[in-house]
């Protein structure tokens, strides 16, 4: 059961990672990267690490993504 979840989540995180690196639209890429972190936090839960999962979710997928968007936003404003 756990193995199945692990495989699914693992594959999903790799796909998200691939999208994050290869999608042309930066916003999509950033969201995909946030997804990687989200999947990672599920993985941490599987590994009996709720603390890490929480951190990854709040900092890795939350704040980091936000900062990316902030910066992207700034860059877009400048390009306008």
């Amino acid at each position, binding site marked *: 059961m756990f193995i199945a979840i692990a495989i699914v989540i693992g594959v999903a995180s790799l796909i998200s990672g691939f999208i994050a690196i290869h999608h042309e639209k930066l916003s999509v890429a950033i969201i995909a990267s946030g997804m990687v972190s989200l999947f990672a936090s599920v993985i941490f839960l599987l590994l009996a690490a709720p*603390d890490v999962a929480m*951190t990854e979710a709040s900092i890795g997928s939350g*704040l980091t993504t936000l*900062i990316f968007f*902030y910066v992207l936003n700034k860059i877009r404003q*400048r390009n306008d």
Partner: protein
Amino acid sequence: MIKKILIIGLLAGVGLIFFDLFNAYQGSEVLGKTGRYYAENGADEVGAANLVTAVIVTYRGLDTLGEVTILFLTAAIISFVLKFRREDFIPNRPVRITSELLDSASQVIVPVIFMVGIYIFINGHLTPGGGFQGGAVIASGVLLMIMANPNFGISHKVIAKVESISGIAFVLIGIMGIFLAGGFLDNRLLGLGNLGELFSAGVIPIIYTFIGLKVGAELSNILGTISHAQNEKN
């Protein structure tokens, strides 16, 4: 194209290293020496039910101090890097009209978010979570305030004060550990209390509170600085 192939070749090499590491990895059936020590003695020595917290705040408190320092440094660097031209700051730049909804929602939600954040770090020694997670939550509350009011900048000073004072407090508690307990950042300044209660684990809740405040302030600071950064070419 040649470069791509070269990179793929290199990554194959790195993959080989990882593959060898994977082969060396056997999984674990039992705890290792260090992990076993924490499991057996952590509760008695530190008094925190959450052993991860015990490790972070006490056993490896110096790492955590370094970690907090990194955020502190990042905030400081970002503020002096993005402050390229403070004097050009135009206070009356066109205010983005924020939606009524966001504005009023923030009035209600932000305090709740703050409460949640504080809860997380105060209970860090009992439940999953702690200063960093709580701090991040608080920062997201600040973020919401910034979004609701793009000119929100008054709190910069407050943020800086909170950050500094909690940092100083962290260090002072650490130093008190040298005199009153076993060493720098020893948590046994206060009684360890009963495992699993809110007031237990010595100064861990206090330290984690300061860490939470500090991390929250630092993250807010980073977000705030980036959001206020100027766009002119310097």
